[in-house]
């Protein structure tokens, strides 16, 4: 029962609804807590209709109190429930960082007990300026004890949220705001996508782009342009940043020796640096040249559309990066 019109695939947001619905049917311990969820269905309609279908027990509207929201989810998870804390924009998680990084992430290590908690938020660059466009995924991937899911399409949203809702570990679930309305097929109730398994978006012959989230779209556009010049590039969508599919990464490096790692987070100290470094260590002999990274500049994102676009990788930058590795 999605709210999409007939004959149309569901949107990225509706795929989330679908996965959550099916999991609530299986597990009545699941509930969603966040702001403006019941009537509005969340700012991206990601839980629209769920309160009406399952009752308020499963959807709680919260005051704007991020630290307490995550604490509520954490304590309830420790008690045995499986909450989804909807933080709306990942930027707002910064007001709950102790609860996430010091508390949720470390409970298992300290006490040996599960923490079945999902923290959902939209992420990435769009309009809205410096406080609504952070890409914080590297920070969470850096933190021991957290899983980080970064779906790029409706199918993966559904399959990954279903896995997250069966995970005994805390999951940071990041949905890119520019993808909210993008339609795509979704799997059935038994289609779960395991964490740590990348997806080959497109096979290629000459080089590979390893990426995730909205940058998958940028890579796809670049691949089309490159194909017209006879360059056939493979695209790998990581789907989760932790666990990270190192097998897929190593295989790409070994097969092509020419690799671009791309995302839209600030490049300095980012997950792309981690991938490039570990892939180089493991496969130095296979590389035809250095792994090339592209990402955002070391600057906050401006409210000006031109400036914000200029801060993140363009299709042209992606094409140039691929040409660079192909030229080795």
């Amino acid at each position, binding site marked *: 029962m999605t709210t999409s019109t007939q004959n149309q695939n569901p949107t990225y947001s509706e795929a989330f609804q679908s996965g959550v619905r099916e999991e609530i049917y299986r597990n009545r311990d699941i509930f969603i807590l966040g702001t403006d969820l019941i*009537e509005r269905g969340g700012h991206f309609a990601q839980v629209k209709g769920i309160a009406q279908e399952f009752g308020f027990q499963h959807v709680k509207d919260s005051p704007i109190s991020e630290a307490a929201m995550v604490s509520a989810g954490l304590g309830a998870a420790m008690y045995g429930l499986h909450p989804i804390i909807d933080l709306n924009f990942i930027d707002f998680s910064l007001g709950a960082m102790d609860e996430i990084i010091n508390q949720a992430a470390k409970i298992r290590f300290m006490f040996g007990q599960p923490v079945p908690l999902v923290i959902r938020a939209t992420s990435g660059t769009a309009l809205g*300026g410096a406080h609504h466009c952070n890409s914080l995924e590297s920070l969470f991937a850096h933190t021991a004890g957290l899983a980080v899911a970064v779906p790029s399409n409706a199918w993966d949203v559904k399959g990954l949220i279903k896995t997250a809702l069966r995970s005994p570990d805390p999951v940071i679930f990041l949905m890119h705001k520019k993808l909210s309305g993008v339609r795509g097929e979704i799997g059935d109730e038994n289609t779960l996508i395991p964490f740590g398994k990348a997806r080959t978006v497109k096979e290629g012959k000459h080089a590979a782009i390893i990426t995730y989230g909205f940058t998958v779209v940028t890579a796809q556009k670049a691949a089309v342009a490159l194909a017209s010049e006879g360059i056939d590039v493979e695209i790998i969508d990581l789907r989760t940043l932790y666990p990270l599919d190192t097998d897929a990464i190593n295989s790409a490096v070994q097969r092509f020796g020419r690799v671009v790692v791309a995302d839209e987070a600030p490049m300095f100290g980012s997950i792309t640096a981690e991938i490039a470094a570990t892939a180089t260590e493991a496969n130095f002999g296979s590389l035809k040249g250095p792994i090339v990274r592209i990402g955002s500049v070391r600057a906050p994102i*401006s409210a*000006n559309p*031109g400036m914000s676009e200029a801060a993140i990788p363009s299709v042209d930058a992606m094409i140039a990066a691929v040409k660079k590795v192909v030229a080795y």
Partner: protein
Amino acid sequence: MSNLSKEWAHSSLRGMMLIREFEETADKLSLRGKIPGGIHNSSGQEAVAVGVLSALDPLDVIATTHRSHHHTLAKGFSAREVMAELFTKSTGVSRGRGGSMHLGDFHRGHFGGNGIVGAGVGIAMGAALGIQQRGDAKVSVGFVGDGGVNTGRTWEAINMAVIWKLPLIVIIDNNQYAVETFVDRVTGGGDIAKRGEGFGLPSYTINGQDVVEVNEYTAKARQRALAGEGPTIINALTYRYYGHNVGEKGQYRTQDEILDWKTNRDPIDLFIARATSEGLITDSEVAALRDDVKKEVEDAVDFAEKSPQPDLNSILVDVDSGLLGGK
């Protein structure tokens, strides 16, 4: 006889009219795609902004929220520089980088709008600490919404202001909704001002549609702050006429409710009625003011339209001072 001066009445009315005209215009422009990212419209909340700012000294500090066009205009910022910022043009008050949510200029005592709910009170509290350390005869005002008062950071900041007797005034721009959430659904204890009592500072719930009342309470709070007696909370009850963000049409409040506020409690109409009956202003003067703000806003739109985009090569400028390697 009125206890208000003619000059104050005229400038306050003009201030409220300017905000209304600005917001109505910005809303339309936003729907036409002229304003990247949209706006948070403050129509209906003019008396809070003008009442507070008219009680302050121009060099007093304010720090505000995501909904701050009205505070910024009432602080004396020109419609041109604010409109240009909404357009994210280089001539905007934040050089086009901030947009609607991030208006500010420290040199004029405006410590910024904010994309993070509740952040303004903490910044205002810090500015109040700075004022106290320096021994300056100024106050600092932090604006927060009825939704923002449920952030822990707001009350951590208020507690510090109380224990250190900081010259802080907290204005709750209480339009009774946080996005689609009615204040009573998420506010333990009912009246927000009662929370202030628990923290040991004077806290008043007032009529935020009455510019005179807002002005008087703010003036009193300012006197208290300047006398070294510490902070005050003013919970000003008001109403926003438009959706939370541009184009939003929720079902969370009735058309009757909106109409009631617009027809019976409009801050501009109420003040015109009072000022007229007290002989402070004539109908033709009111009409002239309306004309005047219309022209100012038209000019501002024209200015914003014609202004250049920020230089795209400037994205690395001011990331840091330069000492950290930035431009």
